[in-house]
């Protein structure tokens, strides 16, 4: 309490011990950041691993990524809309529409893959602009607007793929996204580049703040973080680089699935946008208190439109991944539980439906929870009814870990 607000007078360079103690205190106080979600994931994995040893094989580990990719990407986009306290029920079918556009360009028009991908993402941008404008300018609740869009896009996909037929995708590049792996060497190279960049940025930042005599992270702490990243990343790359083909002579299945670097890049870019740009800052502000943001001169309407554009564009990326994985597009692409799972992933990760609170990483962690549940349940061999029931219960269990810790935070007065 006696500390002063001048940054100059706070500890010049907090020792690593202070940092660790501070972290431990924050955790005890209930501010756990990503810990509960990670803990939930560990619990889930342990349960499944005990029940079904196959869960722990490295083949299954690789499966997890491709299985969860589309929902995770859509959830990442939804975070932007949820941050404003809005919702996008149409994200699922928007991904279907974009996938259909992709498929038509590729298969029916025979255009090269980059044109098709461009067209799909452009479709996402157009969809987002339209939805965002209606929500912002007309003031219709986003639930209703996107419910209408949910219906309309469902119809649009049907029209695009012409009433129930299926458009097969044969473009090797697109198919590779969800079905192929990086060459093992490239996996290592990317990891090395990533870790080096992270370390460099952290050091640079510390040096700059030190020069201005602001508080900065000690070298030792940075070293620990970098080491942790390198270790975890290294383990992942190592296991993914193991041969997982049942018949390696016929086909070699080894390497990091291509979706992994895509998701990592999206995660880094979107996190950068949210935390290091004025745009991201304004998103949080509008979600926290739209009136205060408006009074601060922020163009609230434009923020809403942008959020919907990002959401629909990410839906387009998700749609491309789904199309690649299914190697086809049909009227149900993006339908079914895709939307609920995506919103669920964001919310389980800790994003609030009331706006102002959420991170892109949350969506990835939540997406991992959803993917693990789907993956694990797939190994259990329950009948349809039982499977639904167990899936629901496991989802609740995963969310409970997180919620209980947050409950504790609320009790100590933090939010």
């Amino acid at each position, binding site marked *: *309490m006696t500390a002063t607000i001048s940054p100059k007078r706070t500890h010049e360079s907090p020792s690593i011990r202070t940092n660790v103690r501070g972290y431990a205190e924050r955790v005890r106080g209930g501010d756990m950041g990503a810990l509960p979600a990670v803990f939930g994931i560990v619990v889930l994995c342990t349960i499944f691993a005990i029940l079904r040893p196959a869960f722990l094989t490295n083949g299954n580990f690789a499966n997890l990524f491709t299985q969860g990719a589309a929902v995770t990407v859509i959830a990442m986009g939804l975070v932007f809309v949820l941050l404003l306290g809005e919702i996008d029920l149409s994200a699922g079918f928007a991904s279907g529409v974009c996938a259909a556009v992709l498929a038509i360009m590729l298969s029916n028009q025979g255009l090269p893959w980059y044109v098709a991908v461009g067209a799909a993402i452009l479709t996402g941008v157009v969809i987002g602009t339209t939805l965002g404008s209606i929500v912002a300018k007309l003031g219709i609740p986003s639930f209703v607007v996107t419910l209408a869009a949910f219906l309309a896009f469902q119809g649009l996909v049907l029209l695009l793929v012409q009433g129930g037929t299926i458009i097969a995708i044969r473009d090797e590049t697109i198919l590779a996204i969800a079905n192929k792996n990086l060459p093992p060497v490239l996996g290592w190279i990317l990891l090395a580049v990533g870790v080096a960049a992270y370390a460099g940025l952290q050091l640079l930042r510390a040096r700059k*703040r030190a020069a201005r005599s602001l508080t900065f992270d000690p070298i030792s702490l940075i070293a620990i973080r970098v080491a942790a990243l390198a270790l975890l990343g290294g383990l992942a790359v190592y296991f993914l680089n193991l041969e997982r083909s049942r018949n390696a002579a016929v086909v070699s299945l080894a390497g990091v699935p291509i979706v992994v670097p895509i998701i990592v890049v999206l995660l880094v870019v979107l996190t950068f946008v949210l935390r290091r740009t*004025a745009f991201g800052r304004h998103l949080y502000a509008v979600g926290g208190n739209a009136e205060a943001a408006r009074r601060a001169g922020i163009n609230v309407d434009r923020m809403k439109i942008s959020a919907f554009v990002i959401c629909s564009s990410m839906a387009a990326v998700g749609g491309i991944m789904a199309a690649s994985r299914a190697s086809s597009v049909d009227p149900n692409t993006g339908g079914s539980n895709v939307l609920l799972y995506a919103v669920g992933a964001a919310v389980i990760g800790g994003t609030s439906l009331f706006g102002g609170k959420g991170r892109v990483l949350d969506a990835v962690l939540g997406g991992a929870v959803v993917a693990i549940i789907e993956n694990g349940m797939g190994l259990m061999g329950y009948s349809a009814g039982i499977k639904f029931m167990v899936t629901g219960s496991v989802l609740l269990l995963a969310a409970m870990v997180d919620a209980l810790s947050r409950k504790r935070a609320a009790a100590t007065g933090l939010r």
Partner: protein
Amino acid sequence: MTPVLELRGIDKSFGPVQVLHDVDFSVHLGEVTALVGDNGAGKSTLVKCVGGIYPIDSGDYLFDGKAVQVHSPRDAGALGIEIVYQDLALCDNLDIVQNMFLGREQKRGLVLDEDTMEEMAARTLESLSVRTVKSIRQLVASLSGGQRQTVAIAKAVLWNGKVVILDEPTAALGVAQTAQVLELVRRLADQGLAVVLISHNMNDVFAVSDRIATLYLGRMAAQVKTSDVTHAQVVELITSGRSGDLGLTNGVTV
């Protein structure tokens, strides 16, 4: 000298309730104008009309002698009007620095320049005698009433507006902080800015203001030089809308 900000014949209704009736109000550079009035007289509403929060129903809005259209807070900001609202309008989910720079973040290229912002925020808060804030990275939600108010004030004075309007800025402040804010108000006016201070504390009003404008039930009862009136006269204007030859006669300013 033409007033930097002048309102003429402002009317404002909320649905069937008319809150401001034909209000004239002018603010001069280099002066502190106190805006006083009873609870519910319409002071905050008038300020929000100035700030572009509420559209005005009718009347003229002049800035630097020229008629302008202020449709949103952006417009008001562009004119150089800084306002501390009575309800503070802070984002509870952001920290102190983030709130202070909201809408006017310092950047290096695309990236936010957090270091500069932290430094500037700390300097401004220090000048306002804030001593109990643990860290300027604390969320605004966890601040005490007075601390919140200080952040809102700091946010407004961080920028060199031409007109600074403070709606009951010292209501939640302690003794020392109040003195600091009043001193700041005087200093801003002396630097050539126009300052509008809304307050229920007559001592403060008489201590710093050059002019006093009194609202009574949504009408401007009088706008006079502080040196021309007494404490008692102002209180009378506030409570009854009249005092001697000053004030309203049958609802019309004389």
